[in-house]
């Protein structure tokens, strides 16, 4: 069992009535890795995570967590998973530390373990000064940190993080990244979604790009960049200089400019006329994401 993946999905499908939110995806999450699930709004990320948690039934296909099919997930298996849901779902009627204590009870922890864990987790998420505050008195960022602390109460082996840093200031994000890296070092397995490409690039060992319920590609951030956007991007303003419009380039029209993807800058610099207006930068995950999932807005 040592090498079998923590999560394994085969031809996994989720239907909501007629809508197929997840359309037969295959993926695996290996132990002590951080796997990123990236995709535009409505891609099916949350749905996939809810199926892993047993919070959404599987319509078809196979999904195992710790080797157990999710339909048969027992208490011991469930206790090994912690969830940071996309929406906070904190208990507004009780205090910060009570939120953690109640959750500890839900994980079947003894009062002694809870008494020891709560201050430790508050410190871990830098909330120690807020232990007896009501949830409504917390800022958005503090609430998010509390949700992360709550997910850790049962000392889970697998952490599922649905946009853990959305709405946080840069300081809080950096702090959470540091703590997540620490958890990974401790051997915990992370499945993460985010709309911040820098976050994915920094935290994820492997990235799965998903859209309209289908996997478009997966690999390490480096592999994805090399595969889809080479190494460098030249954004050349229209009208294009002579000789640049032919099809021999790996290029993408984005309206008032064309993006050229090249292995190394000299490849294109030698061809660009002196009067060309362009911007040069190293290619990043954002380029991969936009190239794979298109540039149109997803408000449908």
């Amino acid at each position, binding site marked *: 069992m040592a090498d079998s993946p923590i999560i394994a999905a085969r031809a996994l499908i989720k239907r*909501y009535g007629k809508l197929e939110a997840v359309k037969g995806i295959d993926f695996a999450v290996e132990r002590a890795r951080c796997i990123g699930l990236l995709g535009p709004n409505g891609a099916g990320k949350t749905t996939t995570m809810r199926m892993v*948690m*047993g*919070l*959404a*039934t599987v319509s078809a296909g196979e999904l195992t967590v710790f080797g157990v099919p999710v339909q048969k997930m027992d*208490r011991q298996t*469930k*206790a090994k*998973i912690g*969830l940071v*849901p996309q*929406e*906070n*779902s*904190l*208990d*507004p*009627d*009780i205090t910060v530390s*009570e939120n953690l204590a*109640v*959750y500890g*009870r*839900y*994980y*079947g922890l003894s009062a002694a373990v809870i008494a020891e864990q709560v201050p430790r987790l508050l410190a871990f998420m830098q909330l120690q000064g807020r232990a007896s505050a009501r949830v409504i008195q917390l800022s958005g960022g503090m609430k998010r940190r509390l949700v992360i602390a*709550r997910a850790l109460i*049962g000392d889970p082996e697998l952490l599922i993080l649905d946009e853990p840093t959305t709405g946080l200031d840069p300081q809080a994000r950096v702090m959470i990244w540091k703590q997540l890296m620490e958890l990974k070092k401790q051997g915990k397995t992370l499945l993460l979604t985010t709309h911040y490409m820098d976050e994915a690039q920094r935290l994820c060992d492997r990235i799965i790009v998903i859209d309209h319920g289908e996997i478009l590609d997966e690999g390490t951030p480096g592999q994805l960049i090399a595969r889809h956007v080479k190494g460098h991007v030249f954004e050349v303003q229209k009208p294009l200089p002579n000789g640049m419009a032919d099809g021999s380039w790996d290029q993408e029209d984005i309206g008032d400019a064309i993006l050229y993807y090249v292995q190394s800058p000299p490849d294109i610099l030698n061809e660009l006329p002196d009067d060309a207006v362009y911007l040069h930068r190293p290619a990043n995950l954002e380029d991969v994401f936009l190239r794979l999932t298109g540039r149109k807005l997803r408000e449908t």
Partner: protein
Amino acid sequence: MSLVPRGATYTTAVTWRQYLVWRKLLWSSLATNIANPILFLFAFGFGLGRFIDSIDGMTYLAFVVPGMIAYSAMFSASFETTIGSFSRYYMHRTWDATLATPVTLVELLLGEVVWAAVKSLLSALSVLAIGWVWGGIPSVSGALLALPVVFVASIGFACYGLVATSLARGYEFFSYFFTFWVTPMFVFSGVFFSIERFPPGVQVISWLLPMTHLIAVIRPLSAGLPLDPGWTLLHLGYLVALTVVAFLFAYAKIRRRIFD
């Protein structure tokens, strides 16, 4: 392993959470628990009671106090598993958060129901205490014996509330529940006059409502009158059966709503 089944610790974990909230609102809940029966008994005892000497072989006060005990227990449980549960389920999404832990849906719902029944018991107890001070409890031992019956019936009242929650799409929905379920029990279950005053057709409606059966058992108890064992079993059987059906219905419905 302990004698208590493992699932019970998860159910009590849910109940414990409700207790934590309640503890903070202790004074306001105590105040309503005391003020409500005083106001009602004032109205019935002074108002109606003046015109009625005795009813079904007891003073009017002895008649109305067990009715009030049943009604306050019913109202308390109904409120808890409708407005209360719906807020946790729909508005705050804490049910979702709970179900992400080892707690199962059955345990979550049982935890909600048990707590609602505990709250019902507390309101019943305060009506009992005030009714006793007022002189409306001829048999204190009988009234105390009635409390477990109130608790069992309140589990049911909580389950009927859960059925409403399982169907609700917003808070407005509960106005139906209160208008077509809670208020009819106040009117038709014999809280403040005997249901024998109703024409036979209406009495059928009365006997369909669970609170009628609860009052039929606890009124003779607190009045110190004899209970017919056969009828008592029938009343209790009806209460338990309806409770089980309601719980299973609510469970199936909520399960589909959350997981599918």
